[in-house]
């Protein structure tokens, strides 16, 4: 045993990184100047980012059957999403939506790694836009680095002001639109600009605008690195076949600069020409050649950068590519794995159940509240119980309902035919009266039915039981 000891230590040393710098816990953030790049994956990012952005900004301005297409009306406790109207009772559906979203995330992460982070995360999308603005105002990467180094001048002030003005403007639009999902946006626009909106509205818009400005303008990758929990538990969904942005070390190393003569490779060097472009384009400021890192958001900017360079020097593409642990090791790739099949089937089952629950959802709510004072009353030879019946109509149309009970000797004293407007909940106090002669000396459940009386083709009843009590001897 002890004779092997020195060898083992040598082996460990061999794999240790070449430069080990001591990290200061209070390290200042080094500003990342990303180089803009074009390529196949950037076009995909454009196609995933734009619809989300356009959807976000224009959806609140559209109307759907007389209400804002998507409106989360908190004071009225009603959520409108296209044809669907959700009441607080439907909270469980919201919970399921979130659970399904989480499982969809797990499923796609186990297949493609953190594509959510790289393509669809609002922070990524908004940061891209802020970076684009930055570039319009301050120029390319090198110009920006230079601009930050030179002393303050009129031009620097102008360029910086222009950038922040654009950022603040876009952040305001973002915050304003966000609040527009909670207050009808046309009223909001009018009230906001005439100064009539509620103080809280200004506060919330200000807060969301400020947070957008802060997150997409200043914090950027720090949100992913230090705040986002998802960045930290992604590894739990990875397996050896998960696609991640990977640098082909076997092919690339040893890296080194070279004179490029077409078709001829220096024998002592790998394919990586050490141009550092992959580092310069990285929005989280890492070197992908160091291997899979928790900072990597799988955005493939470095893939595009490297492929462009490889094409220029005449090497084969995909030195950096979406690859997997097993692919790098030369093993075959499998689509069907425990994780993908597991997450996938759970996702499918949940989606099916959810859609079922949504389609079969009752649009009428029937609630029976027993009177809270006397359990029963004896009056003129009858046993009487009082109830408050609540009929809620979640449908888009108003409906006529007929109330009935399943006891043939029982009389309902009170309104039995009511019209409930769309989105209204009506309370109807009624008194059930049972002749003492029909009383069987034990309490029993009465079935109340509220039947839609206006639609002949949909003679549909909602039932609810409640207790009828009387004297027991």
């Amino acid at each position, binding site marked *: 045993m002890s004779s092997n000891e020195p060898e083992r230590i040598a082996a460990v040393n061999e794999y240790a990184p070449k430069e080990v710098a001591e990290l200061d*816990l*209070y390290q200042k953030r080094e500003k990342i100047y990303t180089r803009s790049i074009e390529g196949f994956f950037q076009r995909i990012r454009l196609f995933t980012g734009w619809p989300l952005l356009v959807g976000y900004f224009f959806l609140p301005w559209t109307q759907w059957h007389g209400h804002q297409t998507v409106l989360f009306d908190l004071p009225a406790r009603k959520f409108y999403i296209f044809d669907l109207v959700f009441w607080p009772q439907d909270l469980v559906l919201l919970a399921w939506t979130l659970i399904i979203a989480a499982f969809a995330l797990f499923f796609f992460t186990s297949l493609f790694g953190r594509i959510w982070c790289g393509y669809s995360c609002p922070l990524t999308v908004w940061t891209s836009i802020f970076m684009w603005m930055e570039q319009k105002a301050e120029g390319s990467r090198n110009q920006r680095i230079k601009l930050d180094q030179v002393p303050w001048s009129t031009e620097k002030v102008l360029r910086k002001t222009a950038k922040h003005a654009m950022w603040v403007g876009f952040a305001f639009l973002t915050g304003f639109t966000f609040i527009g999902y909670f207050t009808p946006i046309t009223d909001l626009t009018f009230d906001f600009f005439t100064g009539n909106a509620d103080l809280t509205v200004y506060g919330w818009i200000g807060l969301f605008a400020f947070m957008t400005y802060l997150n997409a303008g200043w914090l950027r990758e720090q949100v992913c690195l230090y705040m986002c929990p998802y960045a930290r538990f992604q590894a739990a969904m990875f397996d050896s076949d998960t696609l991640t942005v990977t640098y082909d070390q076997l092919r690339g190393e040893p890296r080194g600069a070279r004179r490029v003569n077409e078709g001829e490779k220096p024998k002592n060097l790998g394919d990586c020409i050490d141009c550092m472009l992959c580092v310069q384009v990285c929005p989280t400021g890492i070197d992908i050649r160091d291997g899979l890192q928790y900072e990597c958001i799988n955005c493939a900017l470095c893939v595009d950068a490297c492929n462009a360079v490889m094409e220029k020097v005449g090497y084969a593409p995909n030195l950096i590519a979406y690859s997997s642990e097993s692919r790098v090791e030369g093993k075959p790739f499998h689509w069907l794995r425990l994780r993908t099949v597991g997450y996938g089937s759970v996702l499918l089952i949940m989606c099916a159940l959810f859609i079922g629950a949504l389609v079969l959802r009752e649009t009428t709510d029937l609630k029976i*509240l027993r*009177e*809270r*004072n*006397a359990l029963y*009353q004896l009056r*003129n030879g009858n046993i*009487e119980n*009082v*109830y*408050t019946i609540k009929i809620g109509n979640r449908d888009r149309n108003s409906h006529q309902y007929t109330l009935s009970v399943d006891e*043939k000797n029982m*009389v*309902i*004293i*009170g*309104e*039995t035919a009511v019209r409930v407007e769309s989105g209204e909940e009506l*309370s109807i*106090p*009624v*008194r059930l009266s049972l002749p003492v002669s029909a009383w069987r000396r034990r309490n029993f459940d009465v079935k109340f039915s509220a039947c839609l009386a206006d639609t002949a083709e949909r003679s549909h009843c909602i039932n609810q039981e409640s207790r009828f009590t009387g004297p027991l001897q």
Partner: protein
Amino acid sequence: MSSFWSAWIIILTTIVLVGLVWVLFGNRTRSGNPDSTTGHVYDGIEEYDNPMPAWWFYMFVLSIIFGVAYLIFYPGMGNYRGVLGWTQNMEWQQENAKMDEKISTALAPYAAMSIEDLAKDEKAMRIGQRLFASNCALCHGADAGGTKGFPNLRDSDWLYGDSPEKIVESIALGRKGVMPPWKSVLTETQIDDVTAWLTTADASKKPAAGAQVFATYCAACHNPDAKGNQAMGAPNLTDDVWLYGGEIGDIKFTIHNGRNGQMPAHEHLLIPEKIHLLAAFVYSLSATNQEGTSQTAQQ
């Protein structure tokens, strides 16, 4: 709070505040060890002597300033009431007043209408029903049908009358229905007689002894014809409606022990607009005011 507990809280709060300031500022500077560690070693792990980040430090400073200001402006230091004189009760009252003002404006159009007209206004009656559910239903029942000791508001028997003015008066000023106990005045036989007289439907079979007791002791309030007196809330004893039960035992109990019915005054609890609307709702319930359209009873 007694002055001991007041002082106790003040002293504890001050100690905690001062202690926090001391801990915060005491850790502000490095101890000056040459190797910039604290000198603490655990299992060979040394602890760096780094100060708290500035943003964090200033956030604590701000919190302390906030805390001190809070204790100056608001009640927190024992019995000290704070510069603003704020109390929970006051805030609640202010919120209530604000809400009442809002509701008063919203109900103003209804307040201008007469109670008779309001009773025919479907929307007003929906609001009235809600007001009834939150303010009256606890005693009178959700459907206003009443229960033992609490009058039914849907029938035609009214203790104090069902004219608009009388209903408003009942709600706003409340009512006190007092029936004195008779067990020390009347003998058991007299009570039996008058009960028999009251519960015998057939006029020819009514016992004469009971009639005499009624005329002597009861007629002053309940009227000689026993049809009651709405001016003082004495119930009509000739109908089928018995507030405290119509069984012979119930009636005898009432005569023995008397009854104390109380309807609380609502003029300080509800704004006039609400009382007006409630009165209209109650008016609409009354069987005598429903002009032939009596309660809908359906199978």
